[in-house]
C-alpha cells in the first residue's frame, strides 16, 4: 500500500474506528476522554496537509478500494481542491471545537465518552462525505453525518426539545437524503457510473437524457436544500440548537450544514448548463437568505439568532453557485471561509456567555464587557465580520459578492434583480442584528440575570474563538495571503482564475452600496433599541417547525383512524375483505377471460356433455338441501343433525366417485368430529343463542354476506367447469394404477400412494395431527401466572413470558 493510501486511512478511517473506543474509554477516563479524542482531528489536519503537499496541487488524485463492485459501489476517494478545502475546514474547525468542548463540557455533564464518540464519528463521516469519489459512498457518509447530528442534538435527551429537535433534523435530512439517493441513482442509470472523477471528466449526456437528468438534478438539489436548511426546509436548524454549543458551532454552522453547499459545488460542472439550475438555486437560496435574516432579527434567543443567520448565510452560499457564470465561480472559498470564521466564533462566544451566565435570552443580558473584556473584543471582531466592516474578511466577501451580483443582474435579468434585492436587504438586516448581538451582550448595564449567576470562564476556552476572530481580522487586512492557497485549491470546471483580492478598490458602486447598507442597518438597530425589541417571538405563521410537529401529531391521529377504518381492530370484519378481494381479483379476471370463450361455447357446445348423472345429481341435491338447511335453521341441534346428514351423504358421494377408502375415512372422521362438536355444544350455554339474536348483523352486512357467498359459490363452480373442460392427460393416475402391484406390492392404489409413492405427504399429515393434539393440550392446560400474580389481577401484558420471572415467583 502506498503512502497516500495510508495517509487517507489515517485521516478518515482512524476516527471512524476510534469512535467506539472513545465511548468505551469514557467510562474509565471520565472528562479526560476529551483530550484523548482531541488527538484525532489534530491527526486528520496534519495528515490532510501532508497529503495536499504530496499530491502537488492544483490537481487531483483518486484512491480506491473495492467494496461492493457488483453494484458499482467502492471505497473511492477523490482528492482535489474542493474536497481538500472542505476536509481541511472540517478537521481544522474540529481541532478548535474539540479543544473548546473540553472546557465547555464540565463536570455538570455526564457521558463525556458518548459525546466525543459522536463528535469523532461525525468528523469522520464529514471527511468521508467531502472526500468521496463514488456518489453512493458520498451518500453513505452523508447519511452518517445525519445520524451523528441526530445523536448530538439529542445529547441532552432529558429535555423534550432536544428529542423533538433531533427527530425533526433526522426526519428532514433523512427524507431529503433519500431524494438525493434517487437523484444519484438516476444519474447512474444514464451514465453507468457513480465515479465522480469519471463523471466530471466526461460530463453528462445532457443531449440524450435531458428530462431525466433534469429530474435527477432537482432531486439532488432537494437533498442539498434539506441538508443546508433552505427554505421551506429550514426549520430543523434552529431546533437543532438544542444541542450543546460546541455541536452547534461545529455541525450546525461551520460544517455539516455546508454539505448542501459542497454538493452544489461538486455537481456544478455537471449541471450548470441545465436551464433550471440557475433559477431553482437562485430563487430558493436567495429567498432563504432574506427570510433567514429577517427571522434572525426577530429572534431573542442567542443561539436562535445565530441559527437563523446561518440559514441566511447558507442561502447566500448556495445562491452564489446558482448565479455563477457557466465558466465557473471565483470566490466561493472566500465566502465559505468567511462564514466559518465569524459564525464558528460567534457560536463559541455565545456558548461561553450561556455557560457563564446561564441565560440564553438576549434581552436579559448586557454589560458583560467588564467581566469578560477579551471576549468582548473577540465578539466585536466577529460581529464586524458578520456585518461586513472593512478590515475583516466579511468586508471582502461582501464587496466581491455585491460586485458579482451586479454583474449577474445584467446576465440573469429578473432573477438577477431579485437576487440583488435580496442580497442588499439581507446585508442591511445583517448589520442590524450584528450590532444588536454585540451591543446587547456587552454594552449597557449589567442585568439582574447576569449578576445572579455569573461565574467567569477560563481563559483557555476563549482561545478557539480568538483564533477564528484573529484569522478573520488578519486575512481581512492582508487579503493577499489568500491568493496562493486559492490558486492551489482551484478546481477545473468549477473555478475561474481568481483575480487577486485587495482591501481597497477605490470608490466603486459596491462601496457606496455597502456604506448605505451599514448606515441603514444601524438605523434599523437604533429603531429596534427604541422599541426595546418588543415583539414577543416569531409569529406562528412563520414557524414551520410548529406546523411540522402539529402535522406529525395529526398524522398519528390519522393513522389510528385509518387502521380502525381498515377494520384492523374488528377481526370479525376481516374475512369479508379477504373474500371480496379474492372475488374481485380472480373473479374479475375470470369474467374478462371467459367472455370471448362463452360466446364461442354457445355456438359449438355439445349440450349432451352437460347431461348429469342421475344418482349423483340426486345425492348432490340432498347434500345441498341439507347444507342450505343448516343456513336457514336456528337451533344448533337441528343444524348439527343436518350437518351430519350432509356429511354422511358426502360419504355416499365418494362411493359414487369410486372411492371406497375415502368413504370409509369420511364416515369415521364424521363420527369423531361429531363427538367433538357435541362436547363443545354441550358446554355452550343456552343464553348464547339469545346473544346471537341480539348481535344480528345489520341488513347491509347481511346483503354483503349473501353477495359474497354467492360470488364464492359461482367462482368455484366456474373454476371446476372451466378447468375440467380440457383436463390433462391422465399420466400420473395411469402410472400409479399400472405400477402399484409391481413396484409397490399392493393392489389398493390409493393406499400405495399414501404409504409409498407419496408417503412423505402422509408423514407430514400425521405430524399435523400430532401438533394439533399438542396445541389442543396447550389450549386446555392454561399456562397461568403465579399465585401471587393471579391475586394481583391483570398486570402488564399477558403472555409475554416475562411475567413469569423467577424473582416474582419468590
Amino acid at each position, binding site marked *: 500500500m502506498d503512502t497516500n493510501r495510508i495517509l487517507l486511512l489515517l485521516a478518515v478511517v482512524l476516527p471512524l474506528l476510534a469512535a467506539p473506543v472513545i465511548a468505551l474509554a469514557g467510562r474509565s477516563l471520565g472528562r479526560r476522554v476529551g483530550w484523548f479524542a482531541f488527538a484525532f482531528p489534530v491527526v486528520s489536519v496534519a495528515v490532510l496537509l501532508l497529503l495536499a503537499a504530496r499530491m502537488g496541487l492544483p490537481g487531483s488524485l483518486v484512491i480506491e478500494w473495492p467494496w461492493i463492485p457488483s453494484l458499482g459501489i467502492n471505497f473511492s476517494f477523490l482528492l482535489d481542491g474542493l474536497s481538500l478545502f472542505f476536509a481541511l475546514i472540517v478537521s481544522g474547525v474540529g481541532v478548535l471545537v474539540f479543544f473548546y468542548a473540553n472546557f465547555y463540557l464540565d463536570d455538570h455533564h455526564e457521558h463525556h465518552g458518548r459525546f466525543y464518540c459522536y463528535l469523532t464519528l461525525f468528523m469522520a463521516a464529514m471527511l468521508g462525505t467531502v472526500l468521496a469519489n463514488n456518489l453512493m459512498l458520498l451518500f453513505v457518509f452523508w447519511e452518517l453525518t445525519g445520524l451523528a447530528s441526530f445523536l448530538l442534538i439529542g445529547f441532552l435527551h432529558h429535555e423534550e426539545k432536544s428529542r423533538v429537535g433531533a427527530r425533526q433534523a433526522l426526519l428532514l435530512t433523512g427524507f431529503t437524503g433519500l431524494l438525493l439517493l434517487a437523484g444519484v441513482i438516476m444519474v447512474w442509470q444514464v451514465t453507468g457510473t457513480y465515479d465522480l472523477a469519471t463523471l466530471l471528466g466526461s460530463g453528462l449526456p445532457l443531449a440524450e437524457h435531458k428530462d431525466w437528468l433534469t429530474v435527477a438534478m432537482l432531486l439532488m438539489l432537494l437533498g442539498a436544500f434539506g441538508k443546508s436548511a433552505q427554505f421551506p426546509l429550514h426549520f430543523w436548524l434552529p431546533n437543532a440548537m438544542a444541542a450543546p454549543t460546541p455541536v452547534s458551532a461545529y455541525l450546525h454552522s461551520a460544517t455539516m450544514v455546508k454539505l448542501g453547499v459542497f454538493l452544489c459545488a461538486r455537481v456544478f460542472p455537471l449541471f450548470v448548463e441545465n436551464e433550471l439550475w440557475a433559477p431553482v438555486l437562485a430563487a430558493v437560496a436567495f429567498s432563504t437568505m432574506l427570510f433567514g435574516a429577517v427571522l434572525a432579527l426577530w429572534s431573542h434567543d442567542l443561539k436562535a439568532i445565530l441559527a437563523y443567520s446561518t440559514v441566511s448565510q447558507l442561502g447566500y452560499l448556495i445562491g452564489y453557485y446558482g448565479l455563477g457564470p457557466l465558466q465557473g465561480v471565483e470566490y466561493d472559498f472566500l465566502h465559505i471561509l468567511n462564514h466559518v470564521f465569524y459564525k464558528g466564533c460567534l457560536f463559541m462566544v455565545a456558548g461561553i456567555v450561556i455557560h457563564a451566565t446561564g441565560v440564553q435570552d438576549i434581552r436579559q443580558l448586557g454589560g458583560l464587557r467588564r467581566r469578560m473584556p477579551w471576549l468582548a473584543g473577540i465578539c466585536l471582531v466577529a460581529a464586524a465580520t458578520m456585518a461586513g466592516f472593512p478590515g475583516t474578511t466579511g468586508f471582502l466577501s461582501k464587496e466581491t459578492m455585491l460586485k458579482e451580483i451586479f454583474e449577474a443582474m445584467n446576465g440573469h435579468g429578473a432573477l438577477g434583480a431579485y437576487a440583488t434585492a435580496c442580497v442588499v436587504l439581507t446585508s442591511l438586516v445583517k448589520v442590524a442584528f450584528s450590532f444588536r448581538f454585540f451591543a446587547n451582550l456587552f454594552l449597557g448595564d449589567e442585568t439582574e440575570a447576569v449578576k445572579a449567576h455569573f461565574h467567569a470562564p477560563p481563559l483557555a476556552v476563549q482561545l478557539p474563538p480568538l483564533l477564528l476572530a484573529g484569522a478573520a481580522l488578519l486575512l481581512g487586512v492582508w487579503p493577499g495571503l489568500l491568493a496562493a492557497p486559492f490558486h492551489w485549491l482551484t478546481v477545473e470546471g468549477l473555478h475561474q482564475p481568481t483575480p487577486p483580492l485587495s482591501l481597497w478598490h477605490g470608490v466603486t458602486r459596491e462601496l457606496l452600496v455597502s456604506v448605505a447598507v451599514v448606515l441603514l442597518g444601524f438605523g434599523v438597530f437604533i429603531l429596534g433599541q427604541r422599541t426595546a425589541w418588543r415583539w414577543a417571538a416569531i409569529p406562528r405563521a412563520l414557524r414551520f417547525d410548529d406546523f411540522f410537529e402539529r402535522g406529525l401529531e395529526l398524522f398519528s391521529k390519522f393513522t389510528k383512524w385509518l387502521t380502525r377504518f381498515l377494520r384492523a381492530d374488528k377481526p370479525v370484519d376481516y374475512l369479508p375483505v379477504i373474500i371480496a378481494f379474492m372475488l374481485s381479483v380472480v373473479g374479475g379476471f375470470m369474467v374478462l377471460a371467459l367472455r370471448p370463450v362463452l360466446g364461442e361455447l354457445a355456438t359449438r357446445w355439445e349440450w349432451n356433455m352437460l347431461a348429469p348423472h342421475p344418482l349423483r345429481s340426486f345425492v348432490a341435491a340432498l347434500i345441498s338441501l341439507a347444507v342450505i338447511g343448516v343456513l336457514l335453521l336456528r337451533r344448533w341441534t337441528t343444524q348439527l343433525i343436518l350437518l351430519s346428514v350432509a356429511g354422511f351423504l358426502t360419504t355416499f358421494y365418494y362411493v359414487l366417485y369410486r372411492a371406497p377408502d375415502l368413504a370409509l375415512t369420511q364416515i369415521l372422521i364424521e363420527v369423531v368430529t361429531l363427538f367433538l362438536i357435541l362436547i363443545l355444544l354441550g358446554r355452550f350455554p343456552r343464553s348464547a343463542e339469545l346473544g*346471537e339474536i341480539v*348481535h344480528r348483523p345489520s341488513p347491509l352486512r347481511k346483503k354483503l354476506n349473501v353477495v359474497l357467498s354467492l360470488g364464492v359459490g359461482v367462482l368455484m363452480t366456474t373454476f371446476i367447469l372451466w378447468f375440467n373442460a380440457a383436463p390433462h392427460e391422465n399420466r400420473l393416475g395411469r402410472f400409479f394404477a399400472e405400477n402399484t402391484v409391481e413396484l409397490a406390492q399392493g*393392489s389398493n392404489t*390409493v393406499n400405495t400412494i*399414501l404409504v409409498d409413492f407419496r408417503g412423505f405427504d402422509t408423514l407430514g399429515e400425521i405430524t399435523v395431527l400430532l401438533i394439533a393434539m399438542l396445541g389442543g393440550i396447550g389450549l386446555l392446560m392454561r399456562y397461568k401466572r403465579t399465585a401471587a400474580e393471579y391475586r394481583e389481577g391483570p398486570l402488564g401484558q399477558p403472555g409475554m413470558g416475562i411475567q413469569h420471572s423467577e424473582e416474582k415467583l419468590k
Partner: protein
Amino acid sequence: MQIESALLIGVLFGCATYLILQNSFVKILFGFVVLTNAANLLVLTMSGNPGGKYAPIVGDAAGPLVDPLPQALILTAIVIGFGVTAYLVLLLYRIFLDQNTTNAAELYEDQDTSEHT
C-alpha cells in the same frame, strides 16, 4: 363434464362462506366443516368423470380405473382438516371460557388494539 358436482361444490362453498361470515361461533365452526368438505370434493372432481370406471383397486376391476391420486390427496387433506377442525373446536371452547361469549362480534366489540393491555 361433471355439472352436478360443480354445482354441488358451488353450493357448498357458498353456504360455507355464508356461515363463516356469521358472528356465532357455532355457525363459524359449521362453516369451516362444510368448507373443508367442499374443498375435498373439489379435489375429487380432478379425477374426472367416474362414469364407466372402477375403484382404484387393481385386480377387482374389469375396466379402466379412476385416477387414484386425487383420492390419496383428499385422504391427506381430510385428515389434516380433521386435525385443524379439532383444534378450532378446542380454541372456541377456550375463548368461550375466557371471554364468556359465543359471539365473535361481541368478542371484539370495544377493543383498542393500538394500546396493548
